[in-house]
């Protein structure tokens, strides 16, 4: 079932109208401080960062969504941060813009609870999530850009806006965005490693990794599952990344060890800073859990445990704040006790194994 009937097209136009940048910007400007605050300088190589844990709440209005993002940024600004990181699937709250979504969500939640088994007729009637994301994309993309461009410019911050499922040249991608303190979009990253369920949703995977040089150091923004693979962080390390910003939305019951398998070991293997922001809560029977945190090589964390800051709850809103010492990181890397490289070994096996 496609979303291309006249009613759907009409509603799509309406969505774009209510999400139009001028309306969002006007709304935000009324609440934002004026004039804009200058970007905080990086002093003595120290970067203060915030990893947000965002609780999923449906937004029935784009203005509410903008207010929610603003509220979380303000919370971080109070802590004197220069860098704020939002989670994966930061567009899910915007499903609330769809008329009747709450009722659909409730019905779906019951269905999942009851059996999870669908008959063939149901499957034909169902609209894939990728189709919904594609449908909403013309409205969501400018909305997101306007919100984070305004917030980063007014507060003089670097903001990793989280990741969004958006239409791109006929495909749907899961893309994270980075904004700089002038409000410009500095960069983006398509998720390279997809979950099986994302492949079922017809999301297209990214083909390369990018690193962006900023006054806060070199930043990279891979997405969630990308941290399951050491290759991601090794390549980012080779490209000069200092800080990896990782938005996640983990679809599983919280377990300490399962949660440990992502960014924490990758930071230890590649000797970088890692900032994990998490989406938590339930939507359409899907439960997301996680603990946002800021991670570093063991040797430069106070308890030698690789953790600079980590929120306590795994299912509620929270914020983790830490200072990242880039000089200490570079010093550690230059004289590391156990790091080694064996390109002869890698060239012997990898070309064939990865072919």
């Amino acid at each position, binding site marked *: 079932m496609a979303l291309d009937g006249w009613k759907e097209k009409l509603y799509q136009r309406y969505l774009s109208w209510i999400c139009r940048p001028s309306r969002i910007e006007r709304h935000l400007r009324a609440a934002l401080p004026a004039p804009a605050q200058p970007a905080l300088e990086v002093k003595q190589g120290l970067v203060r960062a915030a990893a947000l844990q965002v609780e999923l709440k449906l937004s029935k209005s784009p203005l509410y969504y903008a207010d929610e993002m603003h509220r979380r940024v303000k919370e971080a600004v109070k802590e004197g941060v220069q860098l704020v990181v939002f989670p994966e699937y930061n567009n899910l709250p915007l499903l609330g813009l769809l008329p009747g979504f709450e009722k659909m969500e409730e019905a779906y939640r019951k269905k999942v609870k009851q059996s999870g088994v669908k008959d063939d007729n149901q499957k034909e009637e169902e609209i894939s999530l990728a189709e919904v994301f594609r449908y909403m994309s013309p409205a969501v993309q400018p909305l997101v850009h306007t919100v984070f461009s305004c917030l980063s410019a007014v507060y003089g911050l670097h903001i990793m806006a989280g990741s969004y499922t958006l239409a791109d040249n006929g495909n749907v991608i899961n893309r994270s965005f980075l904004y700089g303190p002038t409000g410009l979009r500095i960069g983006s990253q398509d998720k390279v490693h997809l979950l099986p369920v994302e492949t079922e949703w017809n999301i297209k*995977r990214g083909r390369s990794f990018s690193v962006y040089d900023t006054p806060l150091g070199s930043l990279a923004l891979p997405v969630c599952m990308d941290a399951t693979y050491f290759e991601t962080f090794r390549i980012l390390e080779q490209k000069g990344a200092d800080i990896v910003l990782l938005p996640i939305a983990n679809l599983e019951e919280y377990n300490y060890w399962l949660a440990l398998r992502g960014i924490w070991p990758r930071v230890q*293997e590649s000797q970088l800073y890692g900032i994990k922001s998490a989406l938590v809560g339930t939507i359409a029977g899907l439960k997301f859990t996680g603990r946002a945190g800021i991670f570093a090589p063991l040797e430069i964390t106070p308890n030698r445990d690789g953790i600079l800051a980590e929120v306590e709850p795994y299912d509620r809103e929270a914020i983790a704040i830490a200072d990242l010492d880039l000089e200490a990181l570079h010093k550690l890397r230059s004289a590391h006790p156990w790091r080694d490289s064996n*390109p002869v*070994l890698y060239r012997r*096996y990898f070309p064939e194994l990865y072919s």
Partner: protein
Amino acid sequence: MRVSAITMAGLRLNDLDYYRSDLAALIKSSGASLLVLPAYSALMLGLEVGALVPAHDFGSSLQQYIKNHSSWNNRFMDLHSTLAHDLNIHLVAGTLVEIESGRHYHSAYCFNPAGEICCSQRQTHLTRSERESGFSRGEGLNIFTLNGLKTGLVIGNDARHPEVGRIFALRGAGLILYSGASEAGFNCWPQAAGMWAQVQQNQFWSVEAQLSGAISGKFFGAPSAVLGPCEITPGKSGYLKRGYPQSAIVTAELDEKSRLKIKENYPLLKLLNPEAYSGINEGPVL
């Protein structure tokens, strides 16, 4: 398959007959068909029985061993070959230092129940101090079949380099036998960043044997463990069994069907995206 990791704690090391009988008793009580000894087993045993000359510190004792390795290495290998045969087990004898063409390597050997060498492995990634001590890197990773499972040996610092586990896993390894030696102290996090992380991202089993004891004033002690993918271990911890630094032996049963099932349900290696891995052959930036 029942597997055990030995720490050397509690073994009488000052006499080879005692060592042999203590090890045999441990194996019999565990019921394991595979036993893994920790790194530096040859150095520790050689010093304790007086076959090697001790020096004032670990590094100097190691250098003495390198100079006079030949006859002790032969005795050490014969001893463990006989043990594997007599006990009817696969036995990874821990590690020794071997020299070839003037280069020295940190190596491990596995003996089969016939007492034959079924696999050898050289450490492929060196610590800074190992490089400064003149060690060379191995340039290959060898696989052998053990009870139907493709198996590889991993030594020391290789546990902290994920390239090693990935190469083994992509070549089909389902079991990694790890001989390690970590300095005593608070080391649960370095351990988790090592073999635990490799097991989770490659979904193989690992038997991790960590050395317990002192060599020329340097103290070693970390928990030995048997590891598997989180989903099929108690509390989803990734540990089938985990000892204490002073535990003599850690034993667990590997349920291969459950591992294959988790690999099927959550096929991590099939979700790799090599198109994005340009440059991976160059490895870490030093």
